């Protein structure tokens, strides 16, 4: 039932709004709204009950194992939320004077320093509001760098074929062409193909390391050297930073610019699809181009630097300073981990992934890169099961939901057929991993004995499989009312 269907004309949540309608003095009739929008008219209890009930139709980290590869669905500490919502922080206006901003700004300055330290970059801007915006900012800085040198011939950004779809999309938003580089069967980038693709038209390369294939790019220093020799710059997509946090720093690998997904590595909430935060870090030569605002400290006061103090900046990416409340949560998380805790993130996410991969292989499933060490995630291919039993990776994924576990990422990366990209994260206990293996084994048994059970899954959720084709062909994007 939709909230609109609980609505009755004249019913109101009385305590929530001012008691009277004040006249709109000074606003001529021509500017005023004539017809009220059809918003729900419900009591406070009805609204609370409706949305509480809706929440119960969701899987979430707080309620289920959520091994969604490439998304780092780890525990989001509650303290990060409650402390970011303290009065004084949660009600601070973005344009408040510096006299009323030192607490917030000091936290942001410290976060910049922490991110510099864990990424090995020379300077950091917290401005980007999501990973994709970080990518945009990063590529825009690469472009600003080449442009400032009068190097206008560089039109291409190289992107491995295993990359996230955002990489080529971000390159295009910066006015570049994206050129794909193939991956070898080992999971490493094809260096010969890279060599052939590099040239005076190369602006840079976008890499995720560990890659989306769940393996560490072993020739990263060679790649860095080749790209730099061709005059290009290296962009690090921080999607998989969780795997190496505190162990390896992208700056040391030779990257010139990086974005960090705080909603992955720094455990800020995913919130049903955002808000995220995607700070960018850069080497010295790109520092002038960082997006504004930045936070500066003169040993006495903290203050914001904007276009005025940073004339070469690529500019601003939002009306104010980005997703500040998310940055606060990440700051709190980072302080709770400390230096030792950062390294533990890499250690235990890697331990969990390698353990789970080994258990899956022992249970008869097929690892896509069996010869390689798993990083914080790994891929299995269900192609043998699909061939022998006629059940797809999608069927396995849907049946896992019946077993009260969120499915891993399916059909990504596109290079591996019928794949599961599995990322258990460091915050899951061994018994959760064991339970996952057990569920997968059971589903395979079901697929052998009663395949319709798997192909028709899920059975125990609020709805069964949804008709995507109908959703796209007969677009129903808003409630039209009962009588329409």
């Amino acid at each position, binding site marked *: 039932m939709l909230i609109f269907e609980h609505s009755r004309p004249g019913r109101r949540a009385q305590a929530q709004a001012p008691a009277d309608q004040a006249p709109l003095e000074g606003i001529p009739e021509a500017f005023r709204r004539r017809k009220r929008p059809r918003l729900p008219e419900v009591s406070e209890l009805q609204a609370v009950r409706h949305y509480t009930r809706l929440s119960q139709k969701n899987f979430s980290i707080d309620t289920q194992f959520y091994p969604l590869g490439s998304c780092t669905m780890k525990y989001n500490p509650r303290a990060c939320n409650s402390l970011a919502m303290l009065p004084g922080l949660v009600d601070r206006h973005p344009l408040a004077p510096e006299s009323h901003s030192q607490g917030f700004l000091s936290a942001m300055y410290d976060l910049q320093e922490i991110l510099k330290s864990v990424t090995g970059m020379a300077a950091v801007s917290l401005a980007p509001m999501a990973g994709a915006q970080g990518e945009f900012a990063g590529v825009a800085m690469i472009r600003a760098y080449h442009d400032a040198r009068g190097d206008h011939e560089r039109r291409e950004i190289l992107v491995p074929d295993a990359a996230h779809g955002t990489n080529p999309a971000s390159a295009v938003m910066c006015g570049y062409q994206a050129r794909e580089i193939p991956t070898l069967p080992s999971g490493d980038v094809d260096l010969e193909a890279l060599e052939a693709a590099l040239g005076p038209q190369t602006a840079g390369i976008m890499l995720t390391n560990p890659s989306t294939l769940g393996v560490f790019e072993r020739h990263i220093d060679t790649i860095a050297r080749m790209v730099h020799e061709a005059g290009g710059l290296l962009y690090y997509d921080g999607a998989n930073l969780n795997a190496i946090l505190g162990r390896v720093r992208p700056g040391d690998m030779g990257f010139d610019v990086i974005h960090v997904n705080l909603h992955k590595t720094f455990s800020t909430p995913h919130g049903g699809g955002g808000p995220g935060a995607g700070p960018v870090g850069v080497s010295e030569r790109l520092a002038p181009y960082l997006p504004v605002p930045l936070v500066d400290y003169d040993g006495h006061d903290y203050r914001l630097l904007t276009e005025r103090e940073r004339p070469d900046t690529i500019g601003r990416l939002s009306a104010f300073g980005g997703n500040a409340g998310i940055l606060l949560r990440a700051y709190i998380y980072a302080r709770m981990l400390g230096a030792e805790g950062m390294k533990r993130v890499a250690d235990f996410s890697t331990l969990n992934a390698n353990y789970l991969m080994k258990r899956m292989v022992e249970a008869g499933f097929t690892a896509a890169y069996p010869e390689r060490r798993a990083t914080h995630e790994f891929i299995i291919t269900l192609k043998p099961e699909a061939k022998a039993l006629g059940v797809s990776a999608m069927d396995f994924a849907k049946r896992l939901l019946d077993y009260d576990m969120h499915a891993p990422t399916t059909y990504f990366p596109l290079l591996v057929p019928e794949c599961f990209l599995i990322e258990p994260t460091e915050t899951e206990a061994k018994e959760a991993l064991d339970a996952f293996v057990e569920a997968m084994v059971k589903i395979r048994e079901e697929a052998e004995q009663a395949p319709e059970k798997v192909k028709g899954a899920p059975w125990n959720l609020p709805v069964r499989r949804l008709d995507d*084709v109908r959703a796209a062909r007969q677009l129903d994007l808003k409630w039209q009312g009962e009588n329409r």
Partner: protein
Amino acid sequence: MSEIPDDLKYTSTHEWARDEGDGIVAVGITDHAQELLGDLVYVELPETGTDLGAGAECAVVESVKAAADVYSPLDGEVVEVNESLADSPEAINEAPYEAWIFKLKMADPAQLDNLMDAAAYAEAVEAEEH
């Protein structure tokens, strides 16, 4: 095995072209292409009057899981588009060789001979699958 009529010409990017006479060809996507894409939910049509070079992107077919560009098989001008596909993209799934997407006035009818015939296309599809 998908259907590949003998009387049509084909491209390696899975378009078909049918000579309609008077220098006009109708263009659509092959049975193999629609099978790969699955249930189509949208077709973005080119505009009539557009001049296209052979190999130019000129339309998009979309399913729920993929979107594919349609390339012009020949040089020419778009003279007609199949407006009915806007409301019923599924026509391409149901009868791929009837549901033409656009018609082209060929700049050089001799170019038709450069396209693959049914046997060559069948071979290309076969090769792609392995």
